[in-house]
């Protein structure tokens, strides 16, 4: 047990660091108009492709430089935290609720419900996820809502499979039997007894899923299938930077860093929670 305690202590910084970055991003999203040094959409062709403040040729007030249309990279970076977090929360929660509900049903009741749901999951897994998301968004017409719906439609299976397996395990436990013996209905047992025990696994998955949603949104806006161009996104900034990579690397690099840190923070937060929740490690 001494070993286990050592692990718990070591996981401390993981949760704190990732949680800290996510809080920072959330604050940036909430207060975006207040803290942005410039209007993220304001163009000034005279100030195009200005380098960041530590490189010769920069202009004061443009800390991370400007893109080819003279828009401030830092302000766009801050403004882009909004679509990223909206998609992370919207798509993460939607996929979580849909997948967990079906997983609970399949795992708890078994039989036909389980067979049908498991078959649908198999069929779903036969689609390449990125391709399917591009397909769905194109059908719904590109917008933030479409991105959220598409990610939820694709990724509910992640929740469904894990929650189903966990629920099946819990179903065999004595406490489920005793709840039944006490005369609880199946649904009451499912929601009052089983769900709280499966919840830690769901929360861990949710954090991982939010990271996936952020990267999928970036990919979709990279191919111009997300929000319209009057909202800055990390993906659209990366696409612009890829085009002018030899003239202005900073347009590409800063949104990449923001995207990487955010995706990393979501996954590390999930891993940290997993270690926290795991009764063996605890």
């Amino acid at each position: 047990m001494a070993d286990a305690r050592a692990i718990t202590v070591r996981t401390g910084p993981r949760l704190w660091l990732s949680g800290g970055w996510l809080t920072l991003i959330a604050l940036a999203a909430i207060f975006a108009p207040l803290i942005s040094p410039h209007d993220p959409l304001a163009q000034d062709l005279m100030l195009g492709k200005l380098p960041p403040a530590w490189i010769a040729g920069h202009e004061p007030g443009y800390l991370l430089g400007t893109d080819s249309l003279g828009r401030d990279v830092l302000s766009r970076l801050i403004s882009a935290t909004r679509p990223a977090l909206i998609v992370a929360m919207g798509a993460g929660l939607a996929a979580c609720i849909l997948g967990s509900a079906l997983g609970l049903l399949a795992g708890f009741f078994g039989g036909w419900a389980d067979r049908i749901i498991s078959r649908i999951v198999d069929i779903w897994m036969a689609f390449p996820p990125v391709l399917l998301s591009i397909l769905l968004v194109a059908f719904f017409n590109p917008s933030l809502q479409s991105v959220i719906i598409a990610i939820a439609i694709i990724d509910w299976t992640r929740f469904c499979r894990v929650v189903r397996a966990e629920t099946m395990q819990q179903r065999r436990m004595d406490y489920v039997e005793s709840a039944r013996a006490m005369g609880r209905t199946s649904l009451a047992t499912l929601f009052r007894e089983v769900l709280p025990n499966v919840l830690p696994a769901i929360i861990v998955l949710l954090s991982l899923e939010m990271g996936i949603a952020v990267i999928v949104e970036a990919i979709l806006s990279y191919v111009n299938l997300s929000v319209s161009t009057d909202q800055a996104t990390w993906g659209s900034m990366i696409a612009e930077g890829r085009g002018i990579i030899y003239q202005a690397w900073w347009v590409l690099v800063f949104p990449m860093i923001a995207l990487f840190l955010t995706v990393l923070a979501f996954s590390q937060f999930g891993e940290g929670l997993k270690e926290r929740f795991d009764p063996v490690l605890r």
Partner: protein
Amino acid sequence: MGRNLLIRIGSTMVTLFGVAFIVFILVRVVPGNPIAMMLPPGASDADIALLTAHYGLDKPILTQFWIWLGRALQGDFGTSISLRQDVMGLIFGRLPATLELATLALLIAVALGGALAITAARFRGTAAETGIDLANGASLAMPDFLWGLTLILLFGVAFPVFAISGRVSPTLDLPFVSGFYLIESLLRLRLDILLDLLRHMLMPALALALPLAAVIAQLLKTSLKEAMQQDYVMLARTKGFSETRVLLSEALRNAVIPTLTLAGVQFTFLIGGTVIVERLFSYEGLGNMAIDAVINRDLPLIQGIVLVFALLFVAINLLVDLSYALLNPRLRHG
């Protein structure tokens, strides 16, 4: 084994049927009349009626599905709206490029992941293992999309040793008869073309391979370390074999099975990843064409590509299951 095989193939068929049905329904619920999109503006009502009847769109939706499925089974996915060519021809023109890229990536991932796992297991408990664990963690944290961009910055811009777009230099004269450029250049011993191909393919392949290499390295290392504790390994040690020899000749053989299964499943993710990585590197493969098809709302082409990708996914999963059954003696008589 024979009965299990039949059940497995049967369930694969059911999955494929479900995929076909979903693709069919998805394309039918799209806003906008598909016939109107196929015809040039100003087509007469008679033309519209003719084409509607030709595609069976005047019949009930289930009948439409059977007609469509029958054509699809014969390889007839219709004509691409944006490119005005046979969809099957377009797909087969691009598929070799994607298969070569994905296979190269898989080979890199297996070689790299395997080498890292063996090194970490050989020097377990030392700084080498810690370093490899850290590198694995970093590699896993980054999705292929970001790896692609990072590689572009590193080896395309900062140290320009590789090409960052396309599959082959357009100035080269290609004497090939198939779309499998890499294989043909090897067979024909055209090293100049082979090098040019690799200069274009290595970075996208690496972007796809790195996350998978990390997964393989982690799992294989764990299995190797477990195997090194087993009795038969102890026995080999008492015979005086060196640690490296014990690892390579005894432990590896037994540790490799779970990794193989995982690598197969992960290979389908890798193929899914080609869509965006091909886009990043302007690589002329199926995934890149898929994105163009979606942007142009080219429904017949989208349908065909999604079905071909799904077929690949399902086929790989089936092969993985079969090879697992063959490799694992415990399942052979299941």
